[in-house]
């Protein structure tokens, strides 16, 4: 891999918020495309962060700084990605479920999915099942991503899936879920289409449903 893309990955991992703009400009000057910067610099860095966080080697403040670093670079390359006319992978809505106000993980998933080429509509936190249903009607997404940090609130994911069924919309969208207490077993039990253990794998999972 090129040095500058590796440097971008490292800067994301280390949360070098202040260096991102310069590094991104350098990479563009070296004729790397915005897509390369995203796919070979930023995303692998964030992928690493997700794994380290899960293993307990990185903590929330560090993950936040990494996310912000990636964000700073994405702000610069976003217009270029749009210009290059790369078609959107698909559309997704994301939200933290009813009763849950934790949005750090959900925001990170949003950023990674945007990086993976999705048009992401973030409908916020503490989202009632009915509000998810309304959002599906409004945005007609390919995928819904639901997040919960608490065991107490993860049950609301099941209620949301039921609400989608009742509205006759369940087969129109893929439902993916994640958050600290969520597991593959739970995902299977409530009839979600997939589970991801970190933001990078959420983006991979989302892509697997539209390709």
């Amino acid at each position, binding site marked *: 891999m090129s040095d500058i893309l590796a440097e971008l990955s490292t800067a994301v991992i280390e949360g070098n*918020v202040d260096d991102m703009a310069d590094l991104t400009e350098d990479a563009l000057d070296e004729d790397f495309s915005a897509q390369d910067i995203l796919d070979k610099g930023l995303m692998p860095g964030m992928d690493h962060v997700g794994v380290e966080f*899960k*293993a*307990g080697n990185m*903590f*929330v*403040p560090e993950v*936040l*700084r990494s996310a*912000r670093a990636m964000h700073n670079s994405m702000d610069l390359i976003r217009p270029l990605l749009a210009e290059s006319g790369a078609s959107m992978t698909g559309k997704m809505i994301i939200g933290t479920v009813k*009763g*849950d*106000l*934790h*949005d*750090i993980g959900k925001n990170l998933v949003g950023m990674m999915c945007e990086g993976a080429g999705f048009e992401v509509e973030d409908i916020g*936190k*503490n989202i009632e099942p009915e509000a998810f249903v309304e959002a599906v009607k409004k945005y007609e997404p390919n995928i819904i991503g639901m997040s919960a*940090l*608490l*065991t*107490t*609130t993860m*049950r609301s994911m099941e209620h949301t899936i039921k609400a989608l069924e009742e509205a006759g919309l369940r087969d129109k969208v893929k439902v993916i879920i994640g958050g*600290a*207490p969520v*597991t593959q*077993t*739970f995902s299977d*039990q409530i009839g979600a289409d997939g589970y991801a253990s970190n933001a990078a794998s959420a983006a991979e999972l989302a892509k697997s449903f539209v390709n």
Partner: protein
Amino acid sequence: MTTSNGLPIVVIACKVFQGLLEELMPEGMAEQITFLDYGLHSVPDKLNWTVQDAIDSIENPSLVMLAYGMCGNGLKDIKSGQHTLLIPRTDDCIAILLGSYKKYIAEFYATPGSYYLTKGWLESGSNPLVEYEELIEKYGEKSATWIMDQQYQNYERLVFVAHNAQDLEKYRPQAQEVAEYCKRWDFRYEEIRGSDIYIRRLIEVAMALDKKDDEFVVVPPGGKTTLDMFLR
């Protein structure tokens, strides 16, 4: 002392329950008591293998009373091995400190954005103010403030749970200091009297397993905990 079916009792507990357990457990009830670090819950995988190690290191078949909840899956897939496990059937310690799962759920849905402080958490320095101070040292004030805002801006209430008047008096100044800092996110400060009912019941059931009801999870030898056992 042993359980009604003759097993010695071993207690493995989060340090947050140390005060309550020491006060309420009858003399000589447990063969062995281990209090594990407060902070383990923030890395559920670490909590998981620490608890598992503690269980695996118990020599003789025992009734292991675990003063934990599911704790973000920290207590998932815990294998009982040769032992019998007894665990409160709750999401985390807050229900145990408030006295029941029902009380916890009532509080939870009344104000989902609640941050709980207890004597144990205050003593361990696990609160937003201490966290902020540590972040300033590491990243400087501006970044520290940004990180704190990201983590706490959605909460709306700081709740100090105290189990008796002495604790309330003793720790109130510290809790109020945290409350003062949390005003930056418009937190309101409340004090709730905790209840020792859940812990009392845990102790009672440990000594007589036939008194178990659906507030507890029991895992026989050769079994393991699953999320399903805890969901209600």
